């Protein structure tokens, strides 16, 4: 399955995909769409990717983290398209012999995704939509 996909993500699938019989600790990060942002109501998030590069960047993160955390098996997925509140946008599953590495690699995985993978999201609310800028205070909705 592609790492960047329009299909719904079931976290349990990726947890079992990450697990190996020699592992005793698994961690899972699940990012979902929430119903608010800076006091505004959010109805949906529309995710867009530079798809071929996003796929490669996810692979490069996996390669980098395999060097940093050699005992860990990571499975990472990002969904794109229009997602309703509560739908899963991103999953990072980490499996390791022991919990410390599983927690650390899982955390590193989601932080790298947020920092490096060319994905953007447009927030939809009652008054229209706005592109989310991770560094700027969020502007009010522009009318659409």
């Amino acid at each position, binding site marked *: 399955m592609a790492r960047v996909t329009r299909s719904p993500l079931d976290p349990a699938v990726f947890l079992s995909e990450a697990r190996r019989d020699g592992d005793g600790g698994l961690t899972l990060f699940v990012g979902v769409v929430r119903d608010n942002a800076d006091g505004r109501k959010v109805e949906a998030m529309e995710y*867009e990717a*530079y798809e071929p590069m996003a796929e*490669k960047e996810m692979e490069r993160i996996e390669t980098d983290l395999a060097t940093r955390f050699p005992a860990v098996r990571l499975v990472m997925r990002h969904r794109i398209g229009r997602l309703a509140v509560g739908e899963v946008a991103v999953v990072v599953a980490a499996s390791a012999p022991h919990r410390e590495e599983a927690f650390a690699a899982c955390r590193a995985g*989601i932080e790298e995704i947020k*920092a*490096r993978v*060319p994905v*953007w999201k447009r927030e939809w609310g009652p008054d229209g939509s706005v*592109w989310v800028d991770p560094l700027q205070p969020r502007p009010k909705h522009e009318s659409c």
Partner: protein
Amino acid sequence: MRVEILLFASLRDELGGTCAVEVPESRPGEATVGALREAFLAACPAAARLGKRILVAVNERFAGDADPVRPGDTVAFLPPVAGG
């Protein structure tokens, strides 16, 4: 040389999916990412609000201002990423 740039997200909304920019060559058949960024910002003032925060990808890999751009490369200008 003339470089066609792929645009995404807010940049695509403002400027369309692609934008062709004429950039001075740093040596024959080659320009730098930094020169291309300057040429792009001069040609597309709407992108000035992002300025240096625009990320540049050459052949689907992030590139710095000193990196080269050559004919045939796939070049994309990306707003700050916001996945997750």
